[in-house]
């Protein structure tokens, strides 16, 4: 008797849970289907839950070409930033977990504080410095600027992963004659790999989602990432929401791909990075 009661209760909990999640994520669904509607269907009252005329107009023609050019720019910026973040944050987190250093506490504090700073505070000085270095209007400016979003975050979430990797294993490999690098790549890296995926994914998304750095540092529209193009499109297309939602839908694809491939690790890594 008791058994059936429990399964019945948990059945309803599952149903309610699914309804909550569906309602919560409905705006995303609405965004995607709006991008496939025609202009007139968007203005229909009551609105349609699924496009009657499934239209690809927002993704093809001149707008489509513009859109996919921006995808390329976004990808270059986000991918480069991610590579720089991983190349610098992985060794830093490793050292902060493994070496006894006098400055460990201060360096951790430094990353914690820099992670909390808003981009607006450093925007004008960076603009002036980039102007003097002649890198305004190049990919370099937003790439460098967006690494500052990923580095502190990655160091902070990677350090616990390195702390949990057993030192003994690494030492055993060293005694067996493996070089320091080999020991790192064959022993440590596989253990911390989920952490590196999370750090890389989030750093990519931070740079992918950046608006203010790209908009401020890049004047040449052909170099704009999706976010900057989107901002501009709001003024340009006004209430042509199917076009605007096409921008939005394309921008969300990496989020969905990353989320689906990393789900458990992502949730675990994000909590570990925020509450120690």
């Amino acid at each position: 008797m008791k058994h059936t009661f429990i399964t019945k209760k948990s059945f309803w909990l599952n149903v309610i849970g699914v309804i909550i999640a569906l309602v919560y994520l409905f705006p995303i669904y609405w965004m995607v289907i709006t991008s496939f509607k025609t202009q007139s269907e968007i203005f229909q009252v009551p609105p349609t839950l699924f496009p009657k005329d499934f239209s690809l107009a927002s993704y093809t023609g001149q707008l489509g070409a513009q859109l996919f050019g921006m995808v390329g720019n976004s990808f270059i910026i986000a991918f480069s930033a991610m590579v720089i973040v991983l190349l610098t944050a992985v060794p830093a987190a490793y050292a902060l977990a493994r070496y006894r250093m006098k400055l460990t506490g201060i360096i951790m504090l430094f990353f914690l504080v820099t992670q909390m700073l808003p981009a607006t505070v450093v925007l004008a000085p960076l603009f002036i410095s980039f102007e003097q270095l002649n890198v305004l209007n190049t990919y370099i400016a937003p790439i460098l600027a967006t690494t500052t979003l990923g580095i502190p975050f990655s160091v902070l979430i990677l350090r616990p992963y390195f702390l949990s990797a057993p030192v003994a294993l690494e030492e055993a490999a060293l005694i067996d004659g493996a070089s320091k690098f080999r020991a790192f790549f064959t022993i440590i890296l596989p253990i911390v790999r989920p952490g590196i995926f999370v750090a890389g994914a989030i750093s990519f998304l931070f740079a992918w989602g950046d608006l203010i750095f790209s908009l401020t540092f890049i004047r040449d529209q052909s170099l704009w990432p999706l976010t900057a193009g989107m901002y501009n499109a709001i003024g340009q297309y006004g209430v042509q929401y199917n076009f605007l939602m096409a921008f939005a839908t394309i921008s969300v694809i990496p989020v969905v791909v990353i989320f689906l491939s990393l789900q458990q690790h992502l949730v675990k890594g994000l909590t570990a990075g925020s509450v120690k």
Partner: protein
Amino acid sequence: MKRKLNPGYIYIFPAVLIMVLLIGYPLIYNISLSFKDVTLANLAGNDQPFVGFQNYIELFNHELFPVALKNTFLFTIGSIAFQFIIGFALALFFSMNFKLANFLRGLMMVSWLVPLTVTAMLFQFLLSPSVGLLNHIPIYFGWIEEPIAWLSLPEYAMWGIIITNIWIGVPFNMLLLATGLNNLPKDVYEAAAIDGATWIQRFRHITLPLLKPVIMIVMMLGFIYTFKVFDLVYVMTGGGPANSTQVLSTLSYQFSFQNFDFGLGASVANILFVILLIISIIYIKMTDEDEVAS
């Protein structure tokens, strides 16, 4: 004998170097900038006159400064209050043991990962008086008679942005609170259940007090991440209508990059920085004590 440098510093060096050059240096540069008169004309040159506290005096007498300060606090407190309450309710719901709980809770994190520009534009669409779903639905149910032009009326605009931000922040609150709930000792609840404590009594006298450290962390983190808002406001209203959504970050941006008064913009940025620094230090102190305690 010469002391050898700890090799750990070599591994840390590149990451610290980037952060010092791109964050540390600009912070210091901002301080010097706020004491100078810098415009587009003398931006690249060395001819930037020192003006003392004049930028700060101008700022404190500027009509928009108190407006932006008030709006930033309204946005922050409005956002985190609702994010927290909804996030807590959902955390309690998803902490009941059912099969899909973890998956669904994770799925909702998507709203936190979506680029802010996308969310801003999406909610601009949802809140639109002519085609917005958030107007269609209440009208359909008869809750309101006329559509509300959320983002173009000064009395509603800030709430339009707050609604958007609540949607972004709820899953993060939920995730952190759920982790806290999972770590609570189960035996206390069992003892209370045996003693006949009701659900509400257990919540008030066990859950809330035990969860207090986590609640404080969630609130502080929420404050820090909400107070620095820029993208949402910039995309959704640009600070308007009639400066009703002007916040400190957009004001700084407007001074620097629309009026090209970089000195004045820097003074706003510095005030934003000082407020955030104070909160960050309190937060770090708090989490440190936690670590010692546990």
